[in-house]
């Protein structure tokens, strides 16, 4: 295992320390239970937004705490959803009296831990709504399974809901925006290499030099299928097709196109992918009105990428454009 870490068990705590040193103008770090929160929280009469999940997806979620995005983020151990006490304390810390939205990615662990936290927070008199993201078209959806994973759309939802909250919309309204973004967004990912969970010390899966995994999530879990390596253009088509076809994106729709690195894939390759994705979207009659390109929801050092498409209307476009000032995403301010 080649990583710039000290002991595996210290990864999260040392990362938090680094964030604390680096971004004290934007965020504060609470230890035991661990969470990162806006330096100016709680903000009176603003819906507070709390998210969280396993570590190893940086900059998500800790890097998205700040003006126009999250009020707090709860980091679990690497790839392990955080525990209810983290979300409970974070919720209490940032509640500005207008209720708290929990944005939860659809994983059994995340759902259960956030539910327990929400129950406890409600018991303390805090109004909490939870919205679950589940945009991964690689997963066959069914009433009888865990359903689709929450992946790329989570980043977009956090940005857009953060802007809605800054406008002082109500908890229900912000939650509705979140549900809309999730409903209008779809993603699909692929891996060229596995990643190595620090505690495990070796790659989660072995992938021969000439093969790739299609339909992976963000936890180094293997994908739906393994196949021979293909060109960037072919890979892009493999990801775009199920994404475009899953939702009835109609010719003429404005979309946001998000090309994400799983961590180890450099920007030069993302632009090559973006180029093809843009052309395919355009060919399908979609107008790529906004975009995001970079490592925003990662799986440690995994090489690979994911593509997320979100249909935009005027409201979502304005919320996307609104100012954001976080360690990981920053514009307009």
């Amino acid at each position, binding site marked *: 295992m080649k990583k710039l870490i000290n002991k595996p068990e210290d990864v999260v705590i040392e990362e938090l320390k680094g964030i604390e040193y680096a971004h004290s103008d934007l965020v504060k770090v609470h230890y035991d239970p661990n969470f990162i929160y806006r330096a100016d929280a709680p903000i009176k009469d603003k819906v507070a937004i709390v998210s969280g999940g396993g570590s190893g997806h940086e900059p998500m979620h800790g890097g998205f705490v700040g003006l126009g995005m999250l009020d707090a983020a709860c980091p679990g151990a690497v*790839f*392990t*959803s955080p525990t209810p006490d983290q979300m409970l304390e974070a919720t209490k810390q940032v509640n500005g009296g207008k209720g708290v939205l929990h944005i939860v990615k659809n994983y059994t662990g995340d759902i*259960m831990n956030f539910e327990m936290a929400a129950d406890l927070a409600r018991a303390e008199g805090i109004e909490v709504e939870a919205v679950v993201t589940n945009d991964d078209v690689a*997963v066959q959806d069914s009433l009888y399974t*865990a359903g689709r994973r929450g992946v790329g759309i989570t980043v977009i939802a956090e940005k857009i809901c953060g802007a809605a909250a800054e406008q002082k919309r109500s908890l229900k309204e912000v939650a509705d925006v979140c549900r809309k973004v999730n409903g209008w967004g779809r993603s699909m990912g692929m891996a060229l290499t596995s990643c190595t969970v620090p505690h495990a010390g070796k790659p989660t899966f072995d992938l021969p030099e000439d093969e790739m995994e299609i339909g992976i999530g963000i936890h180094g*879990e293997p994908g*739906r299928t393994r196949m021979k390596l293909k060109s960037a253009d072919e890979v892009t088509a493999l990801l775009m097709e199920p994404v475009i076809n899953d939702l009835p994106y109609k010719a003429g729709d404005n979309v946001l196109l998000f090309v994400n690195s799983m961590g180890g894939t450099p920007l030069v390759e993302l632009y090559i992918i973006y180029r093809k994705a843009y052309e395919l979207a355009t060919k399908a009659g979609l107008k790529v009105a906004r975009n995001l390109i970079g490592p925003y929801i990662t799986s440690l050092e995994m090489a690979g990428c994911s593509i997320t498409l979100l249909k935009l209307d005027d409201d979502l476009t304005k919320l996307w454009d609104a100012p954001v000032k976080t360690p990981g995403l920053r514009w307009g301010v």
Partner: protein
Amino acid sequence: MTITRDDVLNWLNECGRVITENKDYLTQLDSAIGDADHGANMDRGFKAALAKLPSVADKDIGTLFKSVGMTLVQTVGGAGGPLYGTFFMQAGTAAANKMELTVGDWAAALEAALNGVVARGKAQPGDKTMVDALTPALSALKQAVVDGADQNESLRRSASAAEQGMKDTIPLVAKKGRASYLGERSAGHQDPGATSSFLLLKAATDTWTK
């Protein structure tokens, strides 16, 4: 013959030892169909739970279980945290105020624990989860009590049913938890949570068989 509070403490300590011993094994199973953290998660949780035990060591068995459950919830995370947390908290409610357990009490505690896991996780037998080890273990235990088997025998039957249930997860296609994302590719691998459940029940049998 009963299961005393000291027996319970010994079991919990044995759980910690067995989990640490099998940490890499559990992670390896979780690498194949999950995210390679089950071993580290369980180990972190049990270490924390055992560290808290001395402060409640003079309390009743229900309190011991609840303390373990609370600590697991706050330190494990992932799916395992709420599920094993609930497991021990529900067992704790069933064993409230008891200073010792008959094998029937233990069956009742295990039943409450399993019901809690199912209520929280909504998994059915056959979904390729810890429920697949716990369900046959509970059935076998209850059947043994009905059959009038003695405590040692009952515990042995329970552990071997758990073992069988664990092994039976191998061919299954996962319907719950992270392995379900793999679809058909989840078949052919043993479920990590069923494995940790078996290890815990086997630890009980090993510790309490006299």
